[in-house]
């Protein structure tokens, strides 16, 4: 092989990844046009956000304006969207006559632009919504639902990015090992809940992609594969994540660990450390800065949901600790029952069940036995991964584990903190399984690590089982959603 062709080969994406991405794209497009409009969590609020930007050129959140435009409210009404949300026995509109009547309705520019009020998404930073303005405009010759479909389809590329990030991360951790990379990337590519969320209108799709990139860049820095370009990149990507959704602040401690580890391990002394930290900081500030300035000028919180809850000083830390304990473990005799928590263990209901299947507004579920079977399977995979970790403990870079652990623990801690504070006022739990999806590439790593415990002669079959099993789950999930809404 000549140098040029070797270089060309090196730069060409692996065929296995391309086929997986093609699968992901096909599935994403199908989910985008199968789920009825506004039947994904808070999708109505996210559409209202984009419409406010596209039609008014303004961020939403004006207390004097309605939640959504006249056009969107009429569309939701025509499709029976609000009634269908969370109510299994209610269906979206099935009448062709009413659908045709909707298509005949014309909405003035004013009726498209009279939204922009406060809604559950209006406190979010704007990056994802800005991305959706061009597809919104491109489809604006059609009706509202043309624009909803266009925006959903425009979200699918972020899923491809998430899958690519998982592939690359596995490449850093395992070295260039296509089967293990395929196993790792198959998790975000084929897990139905991930496709469902990423193919709906929600900033989560971009958040998952950016988190994946942060994990990959951080792993490169820690393992010494990255350089100063990666330092600048991780700062910029973390900033993009922060400008996408406030949850992303949970990534920052892990980013700091990655950058610091790289700086301390690289030769060059204190000056090099200072240069690295400044570079990361400048990259972050350059990307996130304009949003902070805009938020300041607009007199709105830059960090979305992080602001506005009860002050930290008012929190009863003992009670908070008890809530976290009861979330995962049986209540101890001296602990008061936390009223917001449902049937024990809440972690199974929220983190597990909602991650493997809670479609629509969480109401469309698998039968209970399916969750139980999937849980056993997940527990076995996790146990196998732990065995592999113990076996390979001498080869492992402890800082890589610290980096991953920081990402997991900070996200969980942030979610619990936020949920606890919100539940104090409302008595209702707000976390959902999808909130853990920024960690999807790590879930992929767990699956791939588990695969290494399988004897070599059986490993190919096991990989076929992983990919086939996830593909089968996709089919069943599509069937479940189609029958819930249309049968």
């Amino acid at each position, binding site marked *: 092989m000549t140098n040029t062709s070797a270089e060309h080969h090196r730069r060409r994406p692996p065929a296995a990844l391309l086929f997986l991405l093609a699968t992901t794209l096909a599935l994403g497009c199908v989910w985008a046009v199968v789920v009825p409009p506004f039947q994904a969590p808070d999708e109505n609020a996210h559409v209202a956000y984009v419409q406010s930007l596209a039609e008014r050129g303004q961020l939403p959140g004006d207390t004097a304006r309605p939640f959504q435009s006249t056009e969107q409210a009429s569309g939701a009404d025509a499709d029976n969207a609000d009634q269908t949300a969370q109510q299994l026995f209610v269906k979206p509109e099935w009448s062709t006559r009413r659908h045709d009547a909707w298509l005949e309705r014309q909405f003035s520019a004013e009726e498209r632009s009279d939204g922009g009020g406060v809604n559950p998404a209006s406190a979010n930073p704007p990056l994802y919504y800005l991305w959706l303005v061009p597809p919104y405009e491109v489809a604006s010759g059609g009706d509202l639902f043309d624009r909803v479909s266009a925006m959903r389809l425009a979200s699918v590329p972020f899923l491809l990015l998430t899958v690519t990030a998982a592939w690359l991360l596995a*490449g850093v951790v395992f070295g*260039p090992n296509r089967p293990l990379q395929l196993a790792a990337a198959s998790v975000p590519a084929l897990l139905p809940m991930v496709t469902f969320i990423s193919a709906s209108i929600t900033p989560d799709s971009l958040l998952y992609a950016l988190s994946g990139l942060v994990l990959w860049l951080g792993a490169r820095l820690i393992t010494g594969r990255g350089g100063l370009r990666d330092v600048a990149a991780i700062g910029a990507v973390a900033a993009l994540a922060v400008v996408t959704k406030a949850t992303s602040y949970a990534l920052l401690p892990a980013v700091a660990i990655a950058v610091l580890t790289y700086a301390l391990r690289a030769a060059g002394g204190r000056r090099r450390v200072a240069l690295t930290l400044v570079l990361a900081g400048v990259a972050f500030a350059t990307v996130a800065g304009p949003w902070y300035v805009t938020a300041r000028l607009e007199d709105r919180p830059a960090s979305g949901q992080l602001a506005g809850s009860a002050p930290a000083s008012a929190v009863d830390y003992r009670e908070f600790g008890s809530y976290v304990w009861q979330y995962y473990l049986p209540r101890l005799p001296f602990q008061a029952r936390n009223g917001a928590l449902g049937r024990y263990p809440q972690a199974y209901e929220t983190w597990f069940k909602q991650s493997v299947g809670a479609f629509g507004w969480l109401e469309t579920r698998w039968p209970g036995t399916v969750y139980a079977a999937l849980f056993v399977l997940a527990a076995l995979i996790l146990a196998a991964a732990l065995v592999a970790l113990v076996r390979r403990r001498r080869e492992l870079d402890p800082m890589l584990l610290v980096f991953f652990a920081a990402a997991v623990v900070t996200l969980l801690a942030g979610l619990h903190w936020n949920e606890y504070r919100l539940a104090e006022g409302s008595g209702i739990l707000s976390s959902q399984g999808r909130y853990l999806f920024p960690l999807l590439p790590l879930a992929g790593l767990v699956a791939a690590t588990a695969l290494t415990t399988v004897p070599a002669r059986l490993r190919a079959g096991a990989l076929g089982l992983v990919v086939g099993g996830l593909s089968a789950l996709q089919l069943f999930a599509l*069937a479940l959603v189609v029958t819930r809404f249309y*049968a």
Partner: protein
Amino acid sequence: MPRNALLTFALVLGAAITALIALAVVGDRSQAFTLGVRADAAVVKLRPRDEVCQRPIEVLESFDHLRLQLGTYGRPALPYSVEVRPAGAGRPLAGASVSGGYADSSLQSVRLSREVPTGREVAVCIRNRARQPVAVYGSSDLSNRSSTSYLNGRQTGADLTIVFEFSDSKSTAELLPAIVRRAALFHGGWASPAAYWVMFALILVALATLPALALRSALERAPNRE
């Protein structure tokens, strides 16, 4: 080595497709369509000879049974009649008389005298034929946007819980044309049943081939680089 992976993949996916087909063929669905009104409370009290009608209801699929929830205020089953009429004027399309055999506040399935065909706009009317009051269950008027209930011709501000059923239950496979037609609604001007048929066929082909190709490439390709 790729052969093992491909074989396992094909076995798992093949089993899933077989299971799906089996579920689609043997499944029995008796619901034609629903107003989507939950039986939250007794929303209308029918005194003797009172009549409550929910209208206008577009018949989305033909039906010959109705599911209702009636309360008798603790008494044994009380007689009542049901009629399905054109939403405007005209002769009843189907009807039924119920003289007993149901428990207080229970969901009951009422068999109509004949099938009501698809496409008409109808009113479903319940008349109390007892000497004691009967309660009809439903929910707020917001539950169903396109129809509402009228007690002796006057709006009640509530919707009735009515589910429309067919006696010959159908499998999901039989309902596929209707499912695809419904899925194509409210997704924009490009969406049509034909486009959805093509899309569903393509995704089956894609799921059966693309991951298999990914597996083969991952296990065959010698150059392994990040």
